[in-house]
């Protein structure tokens, strides 16, 4: 038999193996890839961090103008910040007491977890956290920051977790407009936008805020999701209006996230 025929047989065999693997792991072992990725993430995470730091260094290099003036300004600012720090320390004590009340009565922060890596593919938008089940993290816990919603935990190992961000193509977030009536669903549209489908009657314009809004969804209601950047033209008779929304959180700059108790 010729080499070409054997080559085609090999291709077909591997193709079938790929289909079989995808099918079996999706149905029988859906957590396997997540557990593996979370375990390996620290090995390759350092190069991702190195890239982030290089980008930050380059930005600082290009932004730098007058170092001496900058130093004087920073010294003045340092003095002000020291004063501010004392005031904030006192305020922090007060707020911690408030948080304890919130944790008991409502949605509490389960953990503050460091972001250790991004996924190495442009296809997905997932983050790996340096905290896992030992720190109290569980699958289904919403992940957020002070700026807005980040995503949801999909896999957990003892010391790592995988977060499916709101930009992931598989992400679905129930949303509503912050300042007007109208509910919809936000789909991940990588690399950096969300595609929100909302009722055509909703009054919305670029600049409007979008917040999480499902009453019984994965995410608590009222967390900022993003800002409307474009309202796509609606065809006559269309059942949905489509908005392009820029996320409130810049995922590539995340260093720490807050993990919330699941609904």
């Amino acid at each position, binding site marked *: 038999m010729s080499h070409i025929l054997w080559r085609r047989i*090999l*291709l077909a065999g591997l193709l079938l193996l790929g289909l079989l693997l995808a099918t079996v792991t*999706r149905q029988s072992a859906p957590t396997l890839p997540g557990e593996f990725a979370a375990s*390996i993430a620290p090995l390759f995470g350092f190069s*991702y961090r190195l890239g*982030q730091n*290089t980008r930050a260094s380059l930005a600082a290099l290009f932004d730098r103008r007058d170092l001496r003036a900058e130093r004087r300004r920073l010294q003045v600012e340092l003095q002000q910040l020291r004063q501010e720090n004392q005031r904030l320390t006192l305020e922090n004590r007060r707020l911690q007491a408030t948080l304890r009340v919130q944790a008991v009565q409502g949605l509490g922060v389960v953990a503050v977890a460091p972001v250790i890596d991004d996924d190495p593919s442009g296809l997905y938008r997932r983050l790996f956290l340096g905290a896992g089940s030992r720190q109290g993290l569980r699958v289904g816990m919403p992940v957020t920051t002070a700026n807005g919603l980040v995503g949801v935990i999909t896999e957990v190992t003892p010391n790592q977790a995988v977060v499916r961000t709101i930009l992931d193509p598989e992400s679905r977030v129930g949303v509503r407009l912050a300042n007007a009536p109208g509910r919809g669903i936000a*789909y991940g549209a990588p*690399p950096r936008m969300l595609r929100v489908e909302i009722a055509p009657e909703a009054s919305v314009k670029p600049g409007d805020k979008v917040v999480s809004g499902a009453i019984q969804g994965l995410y608590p209601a009222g967390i900022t999701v993003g800002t409307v950047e474009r309202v796509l033209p609606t065809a006559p008779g269309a059942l949905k209006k489509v908005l392009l929304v820029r996320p409130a959180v810049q995922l*590539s700059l995340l260093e720490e996230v807050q993990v919330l108790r699941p609904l």
Partner: protein
Amino acid sequence: MLNPFMRLVLLIVVAFVLQGFVSGLLGDAFPPPDLIYLATLVMVASVSPFLGLPLAFLVGLLQDLLSAGYPGLHAVGLLLAAYSFYQLSRLVHWEELAGQAVILGGSFVAKWLGVLLIALWLQLGQFNPLTLWSVIVPEMLLTLLIAPLALRVFRQLADRSK
């Protein structure tokens, strides 16, 4: 000195490390160029198709597992990329610039066809070219742009194995 197999392993590890670095460097602005795909082409170019096709499949599988994705998605993508590499190499020369551009373009399209084939098989409605064009097109342009430099680096790693 490392043996040929260990050199190929080193090539792939370096590709994954560089992929992480470039992802961090570009941030959210652009999808990163697919350096793992370029390293896979260099790897399959240095071995016979009977070894190159399974190796490409394994590299893709590793990429799927590292991405916490569906095992098989990138595996079949890189498998079809490697197969189209061998097919196109019979028509044009991989060592010449024009031939390299044809092979890179053709195998890149084959890679995404493989990814979309598995997505279709798993009925992943969200993985379709209409919603992913904003990933596919910039990734292809950046990959082609960085290919001359990346291929030179990867070849130096692989050539020492000979």
